[in-house]
């Protein structure tokens, strides 16, 4: 089975530019998560989807971050405009409901210069 697929793996942009990340979860996983991992820190939840509905976006900086999960499968996370402090690894994870763990993708390492 294919794991959680994220693209791109790396992205370097200038500040104030927009950027988007894409995630394809494991087939059949209706729950999808976006996390941000700063250097030397644990991942922090940005948003959680149940199918196409964002059920927890309390940690998403909504002034510049947005996300969508059309049709309850793939998801995109966008930052516009990016700031220097947004440099981090953005992780996508998916899971089944119930007593299952989360499967993480390889992440997108964003560098804002």
């Amino acid at each position, binding site marked *: 089975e294919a794991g959680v697929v994220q693209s791109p793996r790396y992205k370097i942009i200038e500040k104030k530019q927009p950027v988007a990340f894409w995630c394809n979860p494991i087939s059949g996983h209706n*729950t999808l*998560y976006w*996390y941000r991992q700063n250097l*030397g*820190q*644990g*991942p*922090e*939840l940005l948003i*959680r989807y149940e199918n196409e509905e964002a059920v*927890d976006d309390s940690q998403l900086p909504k002034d510049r971050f947005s996300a969508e999960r059309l049709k309850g499968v793939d998801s995109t996370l966008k930052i516009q405009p990016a700031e220097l402090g947004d440099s981090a690894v953005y*992780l996508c*994870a998916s899971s089944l409901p119930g*007593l299952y*763990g*989360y*499967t*993480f*993708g*390889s*992440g997108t390492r964003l560098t804002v210069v």
Partner: protein
Amino acid sequence: AQSVSQHNHHVILSEAASLELGCNYSYGGTVNLFWYVQYPGQHLQLLLKYFSGDPLVKGIKGFEAEFIKSKFSFNLRKPSVQWSDTAEYFCAVRSVNTDKLIFGTGTRLQVFP
């Protein structure tokens, strides 16, 4: 609020030494507990998880963890580490009520031959 503490930020061991990494959480409700490992340049991988039942959980690669409810702890152990165990280890706690997965800040383990 839900939080996770990993008090060991950086652990250095020689091969064959025993390992114990601490993890404490604060949350009064029912929780699921996880340990994830992140090898250099790789994505987060699930080592083991606890949902219910026997509080001593065995995971992959010889790791185990013990859930002590009275101490709000879920320490990770391995009797004899190998050089290949060099990685970052993250403890994570999910509230059953909110389904929110919170990570600790991680412990960097270095094992020298």
